[in-house]
């Protein structure tokens, strides 16, 4: 049996959803037989590969880089999963939306910095005016809310997707869970 090609990524999020993914513990061993992780923070690959079966996207869209990446993933993936509250609702990252970008950067890089009080201009991708959930930019196939969604919910969803079903996770997780 050929393995399904799984990509994961985190945009503007805290990596908590990835931690929860790893929390699947021994269930990961089962999954490993059916899944090949082809892209993401868990593997060493720089560019987004073609022909992804399932993409798990953690985090909200905050920067130009986030937007580019999520669009690329969408284009290359059969099924795209919005994983966790940041991706689904934009959650805590969106709390900066009440302030202009300039003020946010000044606060982070100048007022509260002890050294090198300057706003980086290269290296760090430019922030978009607001942080927004990913489905406001691209079509999403499956939503798994939760902060983070528990390992059980992630496993349940993946197991269903592996069987070719559409998962309904609402009994296992919710906004803020």
């Amino acid at each position: 049996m050929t393995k399904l090609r799984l990509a994961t990524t985190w945009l503007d999020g805290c990596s908590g959803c990835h931690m929860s993914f790893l929390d699947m513990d021994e269930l990961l061993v089962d999954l490993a037989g059916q899944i090949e992780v082809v892209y993401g923070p868990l593997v060493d690959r720089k560019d987004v590969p073609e022909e992804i079966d399932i993409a798990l996207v953690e985090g909200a869209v905050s920067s130009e880089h986030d937007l580019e990446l999520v669009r690329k993933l969408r284009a290359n993936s059969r099924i795209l999963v919005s994983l966790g509250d940041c991706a689904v609702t934009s959650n805590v990252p969106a709390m900066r939306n009440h302030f202009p970008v300039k003020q946010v950067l000044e606060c982070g890089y100048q007022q509260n910095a002890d050294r090198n009080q300057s706003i980086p201009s290269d290296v760090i991708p430019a922030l978009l005016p607001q942080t927004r959930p990913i489905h406001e930019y691209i079509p999403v196939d499956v939503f798994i809310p939760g902060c983070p969604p528990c390992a059980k919910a992630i496993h349940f969803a993946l197991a269903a997707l592996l069987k070719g079903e559409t998962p309904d996770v609402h009994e296992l997780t919710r906004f803020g869970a």
Partner: protein
Amino acid sequence: MTPSSRVKTLTIDGRPVSARSGETILKVARENNIFIPTLCHMDGLSPVGACRLCLVEIKGSSKLVPACITSIFEGMEVSTKSEQLDKYRKMILALLFSERNHVCSVCVSNGHCELQTLAQTLGLEHVHVPYLYPVMDVDASHERFVSDHSRCVLCTRCVRVCEEIEGAHTWDIMGRGAEAKIISDLNQPWGFSESCTSCGKCVHVCPTGALFEAGKSTAEMTKRQFLPYLSLMRGEKND
């Protein structure tokens, strides 16, 4: 002519049930363990029919009616579930989530919030209308309580409990449409309100984390139910 009977029979979702005349669809449904989502409704307070989550279908009428405020009649045929109702309820919830800043993960009421629970129960796993992200105030001027307008759904339970039960009428609504907000007295900071008795009833009827006890952190705010006991103590009749 025989005097008209006070007991009426009707069907809810095809189930025959009996009820006293004058009772609302919601009351009869709940007695029979039939779930109808509600948010602005609270037993013990006057109904307002504002959130529209409890809308149900009545055979023979093209209009949806709010179950919390609509009286039953003999032979009524009520449907509490349909594809259309499900869609509308989810959209109404989605509109509520989009309207202000409901960041469940860091909310004092996380895990004890009626809005959050409704989203889960009704299977709303994402909000498909754009979030509006308005800038809203937090009023921490009261020594025991805090109000965070980002989490307010304008159900007006606080307004009603304060007026109808406590008799203080500290809370009211100011402004129209999306600008509507709850205010204490004539829009003074809560801590400076002269009418507030600090009874805390508003805090405990608030369905979300909009009104909470000072010092409570994420997920620590649980609400007490007191209106049912109050009604019992006052010996209010059940109809």
